[in-house]
């Protein structure tokens, strides 16, 4: 990790530089520490400048005022906790009421539901059975009433009369053909 105190090893090695740097990141130096570091940096202008800048930033950040905070902040936190606890208790009470109602009316409700279900199933089964019977009655009719090809019905009248006794005209024609 780089350090701001880039200086020849004769003044300060990397480990020392990091240690000083990490101290400066957290807080301004004490007068004794500042003097010690100043003596170390005395022979290196770059080190002295880096030290000065780092110290100035630390002091600037340290001088940042605290954020504004209500004087009754703690009381407000405790009040918020109490409010949330009361809301949670009210919700639990609502659930408990529902549980009591179910315990009281639940069995009756279950029996009533079962009866309605059985009744509905029975009615449904009756309907299915009726439909099946109706279907069974219709099927023979469908089978018997299978219609022939319409082309066969073109000469229907002639075919029907074929079975009748021939007429006098027909007899005359037959005799003529036979001769």
């Amino acid at each position: 990790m780089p350090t701001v105190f880039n200086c020849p090893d004769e003044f300060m090695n990397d480990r020392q530089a990091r240690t000083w740097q990490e101290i400066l990141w957290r807080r301004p130096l004490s007068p004794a520490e500042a003097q010690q570091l100043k003596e170390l940096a005395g022979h290196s202008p770059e080190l002295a400048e880096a030290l000065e800048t780092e110290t100035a930033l630390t002091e600037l950040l340290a001088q940042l005022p605290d954020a504004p905070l209500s004087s009754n902040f703690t009381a407000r936190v405790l009040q918020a906790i109490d409010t949330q606890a009361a809301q949670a208790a009210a919700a639990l009470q609502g659930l408990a009421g529902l549980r009591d109602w179910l315990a009281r009316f639940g069995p009756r409700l279950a029996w009533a539901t079962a009866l309605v279900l059985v009744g509905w199933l029975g009615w449904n089964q009756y309907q299915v059975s009726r439909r099946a019977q109706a279907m069974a009655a219709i099927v023979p009719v469908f089978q018997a009433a299978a219609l022939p090809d319409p082309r066969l019905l073109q000469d229907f009248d002639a075919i029907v009369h074929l079975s009748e006794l021939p007429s006098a005209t027909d007899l005359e024609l037959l005799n003529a053909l036979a001769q």
Partner: protein
Amino acid sequence: MAEPVDPDIALMLRVKRGDRAAFEALVNKYKQPVMNLLYRTLPDATEAEDLAQAVFVQVFKSAHRYRATAKFSTWLFTIARNLCLNEIRRRTRHPVQPIDGLADQGDETGQRQIQDHTTFSPPEALLHSELEAKIQAALAELPEKQRTAILLCREGDLSYEDIARVIGCSVSATKSLIHRGRETLKAKLKPYLRTGVWPGTGR
């Protein structure tokens, strides 16, 4: 079980057993550091305070899950950072125009009572106000992890290992974040760092 060395852990273990006085003591100790962190990320005092309040409510509600495996402050600032990130994500999805702060007066939780800060003479007040605004703007422009690492470092209570746990990085990565963030701040605040005055103020 032996009494923990860290007094905050001892307090939190009492909170876990339902001790409200212990919780109150923790709130009083850490309300300002938490508020400082949140205010420098959400630069609106009202919203930052609402979020700080939510942080401590969350701490109380999570007390039963608390394990003394790390410092209490590490756990606390982790909650604060996570809630802050959630708030920033929520704002990104649903940007809201800020309304006048006077709308708070109908709040059921009571009126806010703002502390009286140290007062300066008018020219000094203006200088401090402008300088603070410059520093705040420079901090706001940093990436979130750099800013959080620098602000936690400033608080002084957390070690680099603790800061690394809060932001979810290794110790070396955390130190790199602090280094890069500070280099950026130095570049942006250079005029003041060099001379001790901000250009144009005449002081």
